[in-house]
């Protein structure tokens, strides 16, 4: 896992020079910040403070934030606590299915630095090594007020165009992929074609491809349909290990 220095040219596309385009961009960002669908993946204990935050007492809906059940229609991926390695695979899979622009919020200290599971063998310690995190809400666990405050911050950052972690994922895909391979093994692959998407969004840069993506290409095999988990007939025999 080595750091690569890539000039982040985020400020370049933040303000286009054509005044009309700038007005348009401003409007788009305003709309985006006011209607956010949130996919909360209950990865850890922080999830228990979300029902109070979403329901009548603190009521997130007044900020235009609503829970959404499928990743493809969601804008925010909320990681609510420690991510075990098994969960992290699903989180990455979920993240890559979401449509851009997408934002990741890490709730709880455990996503920042491992929190109280710093010496656990089963959890991933720093979420931002594997996914671009736009905002952290620290605390063990953060109160609903803190969650709401974090959401307000994210709205401000979306309006000002600073919340562009998803672009960073395309620009430095090689680094993220390297960290993922380090954790999951060299044959780690997801169904998403991130490099293709990067060139589609015109975000492919020097860090998009590298040694890790080459490794991915080498180990790439077409995803096979999952082996049957049960034998036909309803018995509980396991035919093949279809996961992990």
């Amino acid at each position, binding site marked *: 896992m080595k750091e690569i220095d890539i000039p982040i040219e985020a400020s370049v596309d933040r303000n286009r020079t054509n005044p009309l385009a700038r007005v348009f961009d401003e409007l788009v960002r305003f709309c985006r910040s006011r209607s956010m669908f949130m996919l909360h993946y209950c990865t850890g204990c922080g999830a228990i*403070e979300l029902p109070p935050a979403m329901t009548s007492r603190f009521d997130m809906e007044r900020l235009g934030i609503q*829970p959404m059940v499928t990743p493809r229609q969601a804008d925010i991926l909320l990681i609510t606590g420690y991510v075990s390695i098994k969960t992290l695979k699903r989180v990455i899979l979920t993240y890559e299915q979401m449509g851009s622009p997408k934002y990741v919020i890490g709730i709880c200290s455990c996503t920042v630095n491992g929190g109280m599971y710093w010496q656990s063998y089963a959890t991933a310690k720093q979420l931002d090594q594997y996914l671009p995190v736009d905002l952290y809400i620290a605390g063990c666990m953060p109160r609903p007020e803190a969650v709401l405050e974090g959401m307000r911050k994210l709205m401000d950052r979306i309006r000002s165009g600073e919340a562009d972690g998803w672009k960073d994922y395309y620009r430095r895909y090689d680094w993220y992929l390297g960290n993922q391979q380090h954790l999951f093994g060299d044959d780690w692959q997801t169904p998403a074609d991130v490099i293709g998407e990067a060139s589609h969004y015109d975000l492919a840069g020097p860090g998009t491809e590298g040694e890790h993506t080459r490794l991915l290409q080498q180990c790439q095999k077409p995803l096979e349909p999952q082996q049957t988990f049960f034998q036909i007939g309803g018995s509980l025999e396991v035919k093949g290990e279809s996961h992990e």
Partner: protein
Amino acid sequence: MRPENYQAISHPPSNEYELNFGPNHPGIEGNYALKVKLHGDVVVAARADGGYLHRGFEKLMEGRLWIQNIALVPRICVPDPVPMEVCYSMAVEALNDMEVPERAQWLRVLQLELSRIAAHLFTFGGHAATTGMYTTMYWGVADRDQILDLFEEWTGGRVYHIYNIPGGVRRDIPAGFLDRVSHTMDYIESRLPDYDNLFFTNQVFVDRARDTGPMNQQQALEWGVTGPNLRATGLAFDVRRDDPYLVYDQIDFDIPTEAPGDAWARTLVRRQELKQSIHIVRQVVEKLPSVSGPVRTRIPNPLAWNVPPGETYTRVESSKGELGYYVVSDGGDKPHRVHVRGPSSMHAVQVLEQLAVGARLEDVAQIMFSLDACPPEVDR
């Protein structure tokens, strides 16, 4: 998506197919998954797929001091953390042959019962949401927050309190706190008729929950079911009464049971337990002013606390069932081995796999909520 990943899956010519249910599914309780095999929309086989929340608690506890583990244990079961603290503290006290002052015991009972009320309100909400009644969920979560406010005033933490330590509790209650407890109990009791009208006697709920996921008493005993799920099969077993700990032997309460053992009975048992817990809290509130004395005994320097060698098993009744801690000490300043007997590991794995068979797909979430399984405690 790469185009080559869009592949038609060759499928045997039958109505049977497999579905992943969870881990990120609105109907599932927390981060937990099931693989179900369906015929039409009837489940013919189910396999629990846990481990998404595994943190290796039992290993982590071996590497921390006795007192540090107090901060770790409540994380094992998030909706109902207090029994974890109490049970672990009781185990350490048993190893040390330590007496807990009486006032601390009453305070612990108060905490346990408040936590049970909060956990049950949360479960009703979840169960109602799986049958499409979201109002109950909004109400349940809002009423649970009243109890969390009490906890916050009392201990400083909304969800995790880290209030019980081996030897007693950390501090006494604030002034005027008992009045606020009785006030909140009055409020929650006055809400119960509303819950009955909205949810428990609601025809939608009764029709859907009746005969869903039934088990009989013998099955329940074979599968290691405890707590409200066992009492819903007609057996009045409650650790609080049958193996009294703390001061439960001085408290008067009933053990509600129901006979049918289906999702409806399980939820109804919890509904009646809520009432009993309110009754217990009232008794504690009445008794507490007359019990004076310290709230904890002196413990040795916690940073160099060598607990005498030995092993012990303590158990309490949590809102999910029987919760036990098996703790072994080798005389060092850290536990040699800790095993947590969580009730949910039985409920969410072997019981759920059995009960889901024969149910319709839309009832699987309901069965899981009616078993009140707690995924972080399954995986630990």
